[in-house]
């Protein structure tokens, strides 16, 4: 039930700059996700919000109240630590009850709430175990329960589900979302699971090397990435360098060196990202948008290619197609059984629909 505002935050450890000039405003009750490669400063940012690090520069405000140097215990945030940080001398129950005890909740009330949350994270029969006797995933769930049970103003979750199986993760996700919606808890979530980030988040911030690259809703981030880093980092994509050639009606024509061909792209905001005159340009097309067919295809941007690899990933099948000596494109299709898989070496036609392509600049480092 707080807004969180990070203004121009920088954090340095000695010479290392972990976070640089970060500006983010997280709205009340929002489910906000930090996405980014390992070591890009997500944990560091969370820790500054929780109050374990003081920013080297910049300000942290909650609801317009300056919190930059307020000690952590006065911030009413609930955090799931990346390394769990469970109290080894307490049982599962005691670990989870800790925050409630501190808040002077009555014994019976505490017991009820702890049992409740433990049931939700499927650990009710482990209540009296020492935490060292739990498996990795069980420990992670204790950490999660401990943060959730206090129903904080701000929930900070640092990869809280990384050690859980898909099924359990799904349940936990729903639990988190339910809590977050019911109590309107502002939630900041760090995850490496993109599907998770995309399904759960109200908005996402994509980080790279201590800097924020893009902030937006999941569909914005996925469908309208601002640069190649974001496009490549979120979801699979095919990136091929291109150069602007000309504009024609409501289409733009780009030339692609690698394919030695022109590419037509719809001239809408969705298909063309903002870029500067001297930026290097790339076209990005998601594998699932690539159409392949053994028979010939009609329309714009159709190329011939050869299947070089078919990969099975459960629900879907990836097909890698070589379009030219240095351009390989990947297409994803739903798995309809082994009989439908293409075989290596077969010749196919590939279509890159003009309304599915996005032109983006290369990210500046």
């Amino acid at each position, binding site marked *: 039930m707080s807004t969180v505002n990070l203004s121009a935050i920088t954090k340095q450890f000695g010479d290392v700059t972990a976070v640089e000039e970060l500006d983010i405003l997280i709205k009340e009750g929002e489910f906000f996700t930090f996405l980014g490669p390992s070591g890009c400063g997500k944990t560091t940012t969370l*820790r500054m919000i929780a109050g374990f690090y003081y920013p080297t520069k910049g300000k942290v405000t909650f609801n317009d109240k300056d919190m930059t140097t307020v000690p*952590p215990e006065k911030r009413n945030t609930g955090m799931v630590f990346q390394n769990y940080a469970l109290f080894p001398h307490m049982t599962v129950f005691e670990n989870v009850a800790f925050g409630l005890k501190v808040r002077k909740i009555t014994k019976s009330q505490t017991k009820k709430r702890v049992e409740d949350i433990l049931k939700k994270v499927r650990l009710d029969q482990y209540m009296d175990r020492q935490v060292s006797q739990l498996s990795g995933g069980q420990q992670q769930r204790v950490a999660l329960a401990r943060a959730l049970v206090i129903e904080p103003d701000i929930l900070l979750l640092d990869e809280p589900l990384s050690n859980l199986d898909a099924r359990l993760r799904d349940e936990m996700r729903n639990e988190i979302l339910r809590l977050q919606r019911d109590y309107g808890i502002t939630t900041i979530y760090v995850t490496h699971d993109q599907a998770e980030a995309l399904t759960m988040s109200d908005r996402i911030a994509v980080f790279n090397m201590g800097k924020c690259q893009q902030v937006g809703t999941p569909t914005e981030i996925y469908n309208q990435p601002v640069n190649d880093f974001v496009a490549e980092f979120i979801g699979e994509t095919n990136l091929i360098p291109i150069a602007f050639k000309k504009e024609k009606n409501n289409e733009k024509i780009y030339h692609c060196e690698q394919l030695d061909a022109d590419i037509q792209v719809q001239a809408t905001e969705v298909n063309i990202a903002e870029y500067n005159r001297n930026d290097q340009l790339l076209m990005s097309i998601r594998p699932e948008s690539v159409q392949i067919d053994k028979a010939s295809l009609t329309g714009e941007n159709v190329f011939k290619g050869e299947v070089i690899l078919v990969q099975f990933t459960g629900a879907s099948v990836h097909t890698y197609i070589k379009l030219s000596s240095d351009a390989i494109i990947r297409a994803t299709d739903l798995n309809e059984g082994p009989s439908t898989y293409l075989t290596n070496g077969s010749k196919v036609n590939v279509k890159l629909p003009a309304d599915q392509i996005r032109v983006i600049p290369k990210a500046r480092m």
Partner: protein
Amino acid sequence: MLNAEKRKTLLLLIPVILVLIGYVLYPSIETLLESFKKNGVFSLENYSDFFGEKSAANFEALWNSVYISLLSVLLSALIGIPLAYIFNRYDFPGRQFFSNIAIMPIVLPSLVGVMAFMYLYGEAGLVPNAIKDVLNLSEVPFSIGGITGILIVHAYTMYPYFYMTTSSALNNIDPSLEEAAYNLGSNKFKVFWKVTFPLLTPGLVAASLLVFMVSMASFSAPFLLAGGFRVLSLQIYFSKINGDLEMAATQSVILSVVSISFLLFMRWYQDRKDYRMASKGIGAHRSEVSNPVLKWCMVTLGILAMIVLLLPHATLLILSLVPEGAWTWQTYPTAFSLENFILLFEDPNIWDPVRNSMVMSLLACLGVFVFGIITSYALVKRKFIGKNLLDILVMIPWALPATVVGMNLILAFNEPSAFSFGKILVGTFWILPLAYFVRFIPLVVRSTTAVLEQMDDSIEEAAQNLGAKWFYTFRRVVIPIIMPGVLSGTLLAFVQAVGEFPTSVLLYTLDNRPISIEIMNQLRMFNIGQASAYGMIQVGLIAIVMFISYKFLGVKTENTL
């Protein structure tokens, strides 16, 4: 069939058990046997005496000993833990310096130390009289003596056990645990009580054991500060002086039984919970403090603590600088000179005792270092039957009064035995290093155990998995991680060995006369000035050793985390 794990455990245990049996159990058995003898024949009379005829005095003594010891533990903890916490958790100017000062009390030679206390805080002492004069009071406002005196001296001299074990245990606590507690809304106080403090349990248990047992066996303080006050250690001494060796043995056995019960109780207490910090990965480090007010509070506190802690040393220095006759009836010393030092240095052999003490302490510490590490490792990380028994054996040299340990060694080694390789050890150079070794086994074992208890097992497993043999793992992984604990234990042992008196006096020979004996002799000749000068030399020496070990080993221990 023995599996590899069991074989390894056995291999580890064999030397440990041999040493313990040879140098601890075998000598102590003499005392036990003695306690069951009356005029040379077996009887339970001593015990029936203890609990019967003389029970009033004995029980009074026992009770006094126990409650003084418990209070000493409490007081030492109250001083040692906060100091350790402040010096290890907050970064403020001079932190390193203050934290070194904090262990200075153990440097004070025990007898001279207590006397310095009396010169400071006794009825005729400097501080009460200075206050009286400044405020124009008719009476001194306070003076120490009696039980309060004993407790104050105990707290002062024993809190370093808490300070050192707490410091090394604190450095091993994963900071993210405390952060988690803050995050859940606890204030500093709560975090300390509910998280930090319980996690320190292994260290605190170690320190409590050490302090409890030292106070049980403590001699100088009750003797000097409350001559008539009955405690068990004094009863033993008087029984011995009165020529009733059997009763002395009986009282020693009772004292050990109490100490060992305390040990078992603490073990039970500690074993109820788990203190191995097995969080995933390695947490980030020292939390930051940027409150200037707090910072300066800390500095002030540091300076104040330093003054109080160093006052006895200063008194010792003053005493050593006062020429004979210049501070007898006078409230304040009337003259200063280097006379005492000059007198001392006129003796061409002045450095002999110094060298002896250093060499013997070093030898003993080397032994204790190696033995302590192996033993605590076996105690903490290996499973075997009879662990409690081993633990008791380890603690016996600490639970028994020092004189009794000395007597035991005499009885055991004034005839050839397998453990002395067929030689008579009494009367040779080697008996004293051996005595120091035996005396200080518990110190190193306890402080090492405390740190080992906190170590996550999987680190060791990772090394083994990478193909490291047990010994390599031990050397390259386990030891560096537990080094702070081991070093603090060994350092304490060294410092105490240099000043060790009660066993030294029974065992020293012409060739290995240590410093403490020299100080005692000066005292016996009423040369308090020269005794203090010698004391100052000892203090200086130990300070140098501590400085060196900090410079060369301390730097490394900082890196361990």
